[in-house]
């Protein structure tokens, strides 16, 4: 299942409707959807924020096979930004020192089973997988 979404935070409503439809059609339990939506939101909004000069929509594709969900996001951008590189967030830091910079990608890396990044021919492609059930 594949669709394209405008480069805007306002697209999140349509994105979540898209993932909901996929989960219903594929008969995937709702419990798995929270992590998938979170990872998609963090990666999508990252593309919106850090490729602000990008043109055209962002591609999102979902595929279920062998008890595993594979999610692919693709965006045209000149400068690579490898979201799979380890993010250091000190979750034990004192409250006063806590900030949210980098927290989104940190959460994605902690909550999905695999996360890969590729940049070729001016297109960034992010693929993550999540075991279902």
């Amino acid at each position, binding site marked *: 299942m594949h669709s394209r979404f405008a480069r805007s*935070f*306002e697209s*999140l*409503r349509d994105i*979540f409707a898209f993932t909901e439809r996929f989960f219903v059609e594929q008969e995937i339990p709702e*419990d798995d959807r*929270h*992590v998938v*939506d*979170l990872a998609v*939101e*963090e990666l999508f*909004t990252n593309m919106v924020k850090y490729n602000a000069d990008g043109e055209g929509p962002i591609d999102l594709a979902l595929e279920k096979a062998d008890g595993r969900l594979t999610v692919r996001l693709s965006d045209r951008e000149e400068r690579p930004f490898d979201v799979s590189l380890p993010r250091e*967030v*000190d*979750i*034990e*830091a004192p*409250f*006063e020192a*806590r*900030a*949210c910079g980098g*927290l*989104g990608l*940190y*959460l994605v890396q*902690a*909550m999905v089973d695999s996360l890969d990044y590729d940049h070729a021919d001016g297109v960034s492609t992010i693929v993550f997988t999540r075991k279902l059930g």
Partner: protein
Amino acid sequence: MFEIDYGEDGVIVIAGRLDAAHAVEAQAFLDAVPSPGTVDCTRLEYISSAGLGILLRTQKRAMSQGGGLTLVNVSGHIRDVFRYSGFDRIFRIEPAPATD
């Protein structure tokens, strides 16, 4: 869907999806709360890092006033996000009652 408003006894009620698309609305509401205290999360379905950032900013303000946020009726998957992010150390969190 996203809603934020006052409930009974001045409790702040957050419902729906606290994501990046609703961050500005949520922050504006919370910034206008004089002394933020209890937040009822019974109908909060989803939270992302954008939502965590809003709660962190509100918590810092509340603690600077000598108070602090208490999040009540927090569902299991939202508690997971707090745990992964270490935010379970920052807020007082009361789980939602177990359901059959």
